[in-house]
């Protein structure tokens, strides 16, 4: 009894001290997080502000985070020129096809490989995964695309990367962990074929993972441009990111400018900012609504089976 009360008395001051310290450190932590978060937003706000400011304001370096003399001339030139809008439509088409094909192939791999009794399961897993760990490299792949007749076609952006072993792994661990074996057995007892099980049981239950992986595929395709740089020389077949890289980053022979075709009303600075925003806005607008699916996917990927 005595001992306990002594303990409690001893605890009290330290508890109070603890709370005070917590308040200060809470504030510090919140501040650090705030600063880090700002580094992820402010740069984009700055570019956005630039893109709708007047040329004189940007040239006199007076635009920070808030636009000056707001106008949409730069965006008007982008739409008038049409290169970027065309490329946007084309990239959407490529992304949709890529995601569709990628998901079909991924499901065809993940469902059989998630079934425990499947003979040859580890062989097939290894066969599909091996390419992830040992790639033939740029030149052999280039020659392969060439002999498949895919160079300078849209399909070179759609087909070769459409199956991702990593996404297959995520889907497989999802299926293994969420669909109990008893469900498969019940389906089997009811005389369902594997196809029926896939369509009636597995697919309806995997809606969340299908959403997540579709987003992984779509974002991956939307952002990638290395393969376009390797395999495509026809301007009309280059995806948006590649066009953006040629417009904003490149100063060499492959540099493209809008101003040749568009009525030049904006300086390169403003026009470039508008170009960057044009390519960034689709992602930023969709992002808040879909990011929770990504986070789920990252978690499943982390606990891989």
């Amino acid at each position, binding site marked *: 009894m005595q001992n306990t009360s002594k303990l409690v008395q001893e605890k009290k001051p330290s508890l109070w001290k603890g709370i005070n310290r917590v308040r200060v450190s809470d504030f510090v932590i919140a501040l650090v997080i705030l600063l880090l978060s700002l580094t992820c937003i402010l740069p984009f706000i700055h*570019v956005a502000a630039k893109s709708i400011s007047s040329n004189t304001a940007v040239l006199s370096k007076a635009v920070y985070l808030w636009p000056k003399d707001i106008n949409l001339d730069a965006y008007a030139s982008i739409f008038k020129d049409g290169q970027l809008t065309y490329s946007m439509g084309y990239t959407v088409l490529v992304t949709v096809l890529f995601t569709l094909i990628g998901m079909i192939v991924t499901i065809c791999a993940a469902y059989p490989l998630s079934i425990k009794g499947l003979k040859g399961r580890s062989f097939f897993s290894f066969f599909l995964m091996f390419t992830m760990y040992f790639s033939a490299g740029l030149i052999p792949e280039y020659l392969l695309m060439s002999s498949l007749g895919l160079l300078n076609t849209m399909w070179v952006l759609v087909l070769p990367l459409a199956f991702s072993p990593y996404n297959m792994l995520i889907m497989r661990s999802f299926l293994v962990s969420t669909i109990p074996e008893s469900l498969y057995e019940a389906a089997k007892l009811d005389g369902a074929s594997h196809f029926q099980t896939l369509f009636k049981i597995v697919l309806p239950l995997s809606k969340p993972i299908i959403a997540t992986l579709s987003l992984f595929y779509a974002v991956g395709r939307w952002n990638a441009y290395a393969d376009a740089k390797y395999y495509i020389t026809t301007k009309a077949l280059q995806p948006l990111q590649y066009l953006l890289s040629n417009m904003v980053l490149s100063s060499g022979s492959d540099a493209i400018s809008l101003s040749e075709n568009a009525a030049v009303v904006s300086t390169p600075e403003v026009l470039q900012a508008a170009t960057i925003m044009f390519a960034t806005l689709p992602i930023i607008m969709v992002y808040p609504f879909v990011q929770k699916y*990504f986070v789920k996917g990252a978690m499943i990927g982390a606990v891989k089976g």
Partner: protein
Amino acid sequence: MAQKAVINRPGKRRVFGVYFRNNWQLYLLLMIPVIFVIIFKYAAYPGLRIAFMNYKPAKGFDGSPWVGWQTFEKIFRDKDFHRALRNSLAFNFLDLAIGFPVPIILALLLNELRFPRYKKISQTVLYLPHFLSWVIIASVALNLFKPETGLINILMKNAGWIEEGIPFLTEKWHWAVTYLLLGVWQNMGWGSIIYLAAITGIDAELYEAATIDGAGRWRKIWSVTLPCIRGTMVTLLIMNLGRVMGSNFERLDAFGNVQVKEFQYQLAIYIYEKGLAGANFSRATAVGLFQSLTGLLLVLGSDWVSKKLGEDGLL
């Protein structure tokens, strides 16, 4: 023994026949990805023989002579290759050294954050850079870091801290720092998810016990949280070590310019410039093969180490 085998064989075959009749649909499904990887991935492996030939695109595989290890001997004496290899290793190790602890620290901070709504919003914001392409990140970086017109330089000049704009992206040492920090920045939020997941899995009783023992916040992080996520940390560290031979062409390409070539020239750039741009197919293939093989060995090695340490393997 022999008799037993004879008896067993027909039975086994019949069992397999039944098994296949029941499960052919699964194998039919599997054929789709299998054929897919054969056509688009495995079919590229025979092309690796270019590394041992003096390959001329006009002559094709049949017309080009075999040269054995000659191409490899050449690349190991090639100054450009030395530079690319040195840069790749140096930058990948630096990426790892800075990029590995930051997500852990961020996850600890996020976990300690008391205001749930604020936490959620800041997480959403912090994950954003992971979803933007390197082209967009590099383009935005130009708007911030150009010596004359970049926002950071303008602000620092206005504040009177500097006279001349700092060449963040056009002088090699500045470039190296900017390149590395932007890489860390791009990945920190996304990388923290995995640690936050691990932290969520820690038994709350451990914290209660620590509180009763009089542990403060930092003591709890040090003595409960960190030891509990050690496994995740080790696995990720080893996994990343397995990748030090890899390279991200898009990141290098997006940040590349003539002034920083000295450091930006890494294996991916070497292969692209010698191979596709310079049509020196044999040499680029040999370097690609070298990169793939050492990469594979590193992954296998790290998997082995990881299992030795009692953590989950990677494969």
